């Protein structure tokens, strides 16, 4: 059975790209490194996927280019969150946190008092 995802939900790579840009502007390679760090190496963004995501997010008004510089003869274009992007990230983070809180609360109920809060 295929789960139907509502349009308001965000795919994980998109969420991670927005999260990577949350603390300031970054260039492409820095976003890839940051996403790998945020996901503890679980999500590896490839260049094609990154630029497809950035193009889509830019079209949706969630990120925007934030300057360029040449480093060692290589062009680095920076991207940053827009206000709408920050709001979308906050909404998604709150949704994920709420889901996680609910899941943990039910796990605690399932394990019972004897578990002694074994679920972190």
């Amino acid at each position, binding site marked *: 059975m295929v789960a139907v995802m509502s349009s308001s939900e965000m795919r994980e790579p998109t969420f991670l790209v927005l999260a990577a840009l949350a603390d300031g502007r970054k260039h492409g390679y820095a976003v890839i490194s940051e996403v790998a760090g945020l996901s503890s190496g679980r999500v590896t963004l*490839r260049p094609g996927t990154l630029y497809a995501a950035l193009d889509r997010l830019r*079209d949706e008004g969630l990120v925007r280019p934030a300057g360029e510089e040449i480093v060692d003869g290589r062009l680095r274009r920076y991207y940053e969150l827009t206000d709408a992007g920050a709001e979308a990230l906050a909404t998604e983070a709150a949704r994920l946190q709420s889901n996680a809180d609910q899941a943990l609360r039910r796990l605690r109920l399932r394990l019972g008092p004897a578990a002694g809060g074994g679920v972190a």
Partner: protein
Amino acid sequence: MSALYRAVLKCYPRWWRDQHGEEALGLLLDSAEARGRADFRDLLNLAAHAARLRLTQAGPPTLVQGIRSRVSVIAVTLLAAISSTFLVFGEWAPWDPRTSMEGSPIGNVTTGSICFLAGLLAAIAMVLGRAASARWLAAFSALSAFAIMAPPIAQFAHGYGFTRPPGGILAFVTMVGALAAAGEPLPPRSRSRGLFTLLAAGPTIAAMLILAPSLGPEPWFYYRLPDQVALRIGLGILLGTGLIVLATVLLIAGHRVWGAALAVNSAPWLLLFALAPTALSAGAVPVGGPLLLALVIVAALLAGLIVVRISRHRQPETFRRMTTKSQG
């Protein structure tokens, strides 16, 4: 290494390379430097995304894509006109019990109904804004028409062969269906705009309905009788191709609305004249060939003017929609 990356990035369309080419190259070089080697999964990933971009025609529309898209819309409209006419007069024809298919349990219904039905559904999908579905249906219509036509063509080598529906019609459906599938048949404006485009073919279809009973006592055109198609295949292809070429030239010259109007309103009629020269010359048509031709020209002109008027009224919206859609 830089040369290898540049080669892979060339898989992307030019507009993408203009936008991201240099920064992507920098990213790949940074990444390779950090790893100490090139990662071929990165290259595969780039190639896959480049192929996807090219197949989905995303990005700002190039001249070629724009032309393909517009030709596709015209072709689907033609497909609708031809398909609906032959579904009614050729396949169904409830008012005419005669059939050239002696002993056939299904009467006049032939395998041609498959390609005509697919053609009609393609037009409906286009009007509903389902460009991908319209494309697949048009491709299916073209392929099925070709499949019906192919064996008799092989028989011509031995001096005999005919198809039912007529080979010229099948050849035209094959060509128009292929043109429709080659581009993205998005109505140039809104959904209602697509409907207007189809309605613009109304005079053509209506005139066909009026003319059909006049095509003589043995109206072979709607395959009531076996026909000889060897010559007419050539005529049908020639006229159909010529018309599309002319419409394309108009589109390239910037007269896209006029090109669309011409193709939408004239092609089915030209095809009719091409395939029924004997019926016209034999005086089977009561009003006479020249007068009929004049009526056709007037009907096509009127329909064309309607298309032009509506298009000019909504012209700025076209570019907004095309650009937004392509970049999405």
